[in-house]
């Protein structure tokens, strides 16, 4: 990848007045300068690099049908999105600090902020956070700054890995994290949110649809929290739900994972996180923001703004340490949502809703298999099986099916329960195949 010929290197050394390239490294003490070459594989040509990764791809799940969701969703993506984000002008540009030659990125960020505000029912949204899990952690820190209170009441029905990240961030800041259980509906046990408990809490933190796929009653939770001077922080891991599910408008801070909007699963990242909130909280919000302004000629343009919240200006007093974020995937989500549009967004959500209901009914028909929670679901739901989900899944692999996510690892009380996800991408025939395969497995004695 190097654009220099040997003689050009020599010319440049001569111009510098260095006898050899080694001279330029003499400020490194000699004992630390490597003598031999690094023990690395390569160099590989382009074709060999492709061969290496193609071989790796073959070692994965090609050819399998998956019913996994749990925070990462297989949704429709358009080739248009991918073609556009690969334009060098977007792909190979830096953070748009120099607005006059970054209006492309800045305009797209401004559109992203608008779309996220519209979807979440919040007034403002940033662009962007690393992902949903870190957005949630940052939302908790933000709640602490806004309320001055240190206790977080965290629903057990939140994605376990999100809770782990929150725990890591909270630990050394002296934030208390209290877990709040769930009821038979699969929702947070609101009875545990006593006024007393809430009065010293910074925030009630929930996810909706939650990790079990069940929608939380956000207006009621917001009322309870607000009555005690606490905030409601809502996280959305399955953003496609916002096409049909009431937005978390009553929450004070929304932490969203945008992977559902045109971003491939890619074994867990890169995704894109968002924090959305009310205008009055914006100066405590972490992350980058683009704002509208004008040039001397009165022409509209966009700039990064409110940077006084950020680490490069405020250093230890910043709202967060975030710098590099997930701009390219904010762009991907923006393009994807523009393509999908008002109607498509709704239609897609409706398809998920319909397919999940269909799938749940199909599975419920299997003897000794039953649905666990009674709350309303979007595209995921928990089923109880007469035997370990791990065992069932091992058998399903023979049918090239990746079965439900076993809940036992994160919820010991939910062994033999599995989380099933279906989206608009799951054909009816595959749902039927799953049901048939599970039936078959369960008919076979252990």
């Amino acid at each position: 990848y190097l654009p220099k010929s040997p003689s050009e290197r020599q010319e440049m050394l001569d111009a510098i007045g260095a006898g050899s390239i080694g001279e330029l490294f003499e400020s490194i003490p000699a004992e630390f300068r490597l003598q031999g070459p690094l023990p690395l594989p390569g160099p590989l040509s382009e074709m060999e690099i492709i061969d290496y990764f193609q071989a790796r791809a073959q070692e994965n799940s090609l050819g399998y049908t998956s019913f996994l969701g749990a925070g990462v969703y297989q949704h429709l993506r358009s080739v248009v999105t991918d073609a556009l984000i690969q334009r060098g002008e977007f792909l190979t540009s830096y953070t748009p600090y120099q607005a006059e030659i970054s209006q492309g990125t800045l305009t797209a960020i401004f559109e992203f902020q608008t779309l996220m505000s519209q979807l979440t029912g919040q007034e403002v949204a940033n662009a962007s956070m690393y992902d949903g899990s870190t957005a949630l952690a940052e939302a908790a820190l933000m709640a602490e700054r806004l309320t001055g209170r240190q206790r977080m009441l965290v629903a057990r029905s939140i994605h376990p890995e999100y809770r782990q990240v929150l725990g890591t961030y909270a630990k050394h800041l002296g934030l208390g994290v209290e877990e709040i259980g769930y009821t038979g509906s699969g929702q947070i046990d609101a009875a545990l949110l006593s006024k007393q408990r809430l009065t010293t809490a910074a925030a009630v933190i929930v996810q909706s649809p939650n990790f079990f796929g069940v929608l939380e009653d956000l207006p009621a939770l917001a009322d309870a929290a607000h009555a005690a001077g606490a905030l409601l922080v809502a996280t959305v891991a399955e953003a496609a739900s916002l096409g049909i599910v009431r937005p978390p408008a009553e929450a004070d801070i929304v932490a969203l994972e945008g992977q559902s909007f045109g971003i491939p699963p890619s074994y867990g990242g890169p995704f894109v996180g968002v924090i959305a909130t009310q205008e009055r909280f914006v100066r405590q919000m972490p992350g980058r923001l683009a704002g509208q302004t004008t040039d001397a000629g009165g022409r509209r343009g966009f700039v990064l703004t409110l940077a006084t919240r950020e680490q490069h200006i405020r250093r230890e007093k910043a709202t967060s340490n975030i710098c590099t974020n997930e701009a390219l995937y904010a762009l991907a989500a923006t393009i994807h949502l523009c393509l999908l549009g008002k109607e498509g967004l709704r239609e897609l959500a409706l398809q998920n809703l319909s397919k999940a209901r269909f799938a749940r009914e199909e599975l419920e028909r299997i003897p000794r298999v039953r649905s666990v929670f009674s709350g309303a679901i979007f595209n995921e739901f928990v089923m109880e099986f007469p035997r370990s989900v791990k065992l069932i899944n091992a058998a399903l692999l023979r049918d090239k099916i990746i079965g439900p996510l076993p809940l036992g690892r994160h919820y010991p009380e939910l062994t033999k329960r599995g989380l099933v996800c279906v989206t608009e991408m799951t054909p009816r025939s595959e749902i039927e195949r799953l049901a048939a395969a599970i039936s078959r497995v369960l008919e076979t004695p252990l």
Partner: protein
Amino acid sequence: MNSKSTEIEAPANTIRKARPHVNQTEGLIFERSAPGKRGMELPPLDVPPVDPARALGRDFVRGPVDGFPEVSEIEVIRHFTRLSSWNYAIDLGMYPLGSCTMKYNPRVNEYVARLDGLASEHPEQPVELAQGCMRILYDLQKCLLAITGMDAVTLQPVAGAQGELTGLLMIRAYLESQGHGRKKILIPDSAHGTNPASVVIAGYEVQNIKSDARGQIDTDHLRDFTTEDVAALMVTNPSTLGVFEERIAEIASILHERGALLYMDGANMNALAGIARPGDFGVDVLHLNLHKTFSTPHGGGGPGAGPVLAKKILEPFLPVPVVVEREGGRFAFDHNRPRSVGRVRAYCGNFGVLLRALAYTLAYGPGLRQATEDAVLNANYIRKNLEDQFELPYNLPSMHEVVFSDARQKRHGVNTMDIAKRLIDYGFHPYTTAFPLIVPGAMMIEPTESESKEECDLFIDAMRSIALEAETNPDLVKTAPHSTRVGRLDEVAAARKPILRWKPPLSK
């Protein structure tokens, strides 16, 4: 071109690298919306449709999202194609942002990152069906360990700043395991803003320490500051001045003697890869910015990846899970690590970025050294050719970047930002202006190895020409850029009354 500014336009022939060319105007996508237009069709629903109000309950349903765009596919293509043409990018030319290492992003990396069987993989799928992904992670770990000379690694952090936090938490967990409840992290005044910000999130206090007159860490001061309360020093090496900390070994022993650790911000690893290994000069833990040194594309601000590498003593504290090799060459996740600092992000970090970094490393192999040499060569060539025109506030040998200041141009009322903006007219992205704070009016120039001699020469010419303009026609520089579709934007107004989203016109 601003009609106003054309009057003070310099003779066009001094600018060789760029010319204005007709460029499409485009509003916000919301302004193109009209009811009924669609950009994407779904396959037909193959199960019975449900009534959402029934399925969810009336209170859980929303109507169509107000103000959401309704546009066609070609309008989306044009919108974003036009927008893109307003951006500068590495694919268009030199992007000498100091500390950002804007190097060529190989196209094959984009290709392999999108392969079916990689981009399509779900992080929760059984490890038997994820061996390919895990091997990629494992192979990258091995490469990074070799390059840094460290003992242990986590790939989970998704940016430099998160790497800092992770490294600091590991330090904290280690010291606490030793029974030391230390409180402070030392940070040189030349450090990047994320360093102090990360320290605070790690629950530590920041103690700033001043650089000496040569821009290096003052070891005497360091000795004074390294009290029992100090957990670690965060050093950037080469520093943000582009200079290697010559006394790095001494720095390490001062810390170690007092039970403190040495954290290295590895953002500037592009000066060292293949030449020297932090593990050899006393670093206990460091992070790398794969979106800098390892060429993964910046994408207008991200994604990135900030792996953390550590010495043996810190290994027990790595975030969970850790990828390990089991017998028979199978890979597994080790979740059972009781002393771990915990998780810093869901799943395995930015896998797609990690994959690209591995592709980059495989392309060079041991030849990484040549890339590093070229990066340092370019920076020194530029320095040599500009040092008679611009002030060099610290003049130790430069490595991968050189930091000038605007001191001489200030005399004519021209500051670093003005020069930066004028560079735009010359067809370049500006250098970094905001940073390091120890250089007032800094001009931080990092060409990277991706620039040809020709591109460097054009940059030198541009800078020299601007230096001349600063003397002879300072207004021309102070009102730059003159060739962009919008002129300098009013940032103050933007911050005073922030407009952070589009809203439908009230008339509707």
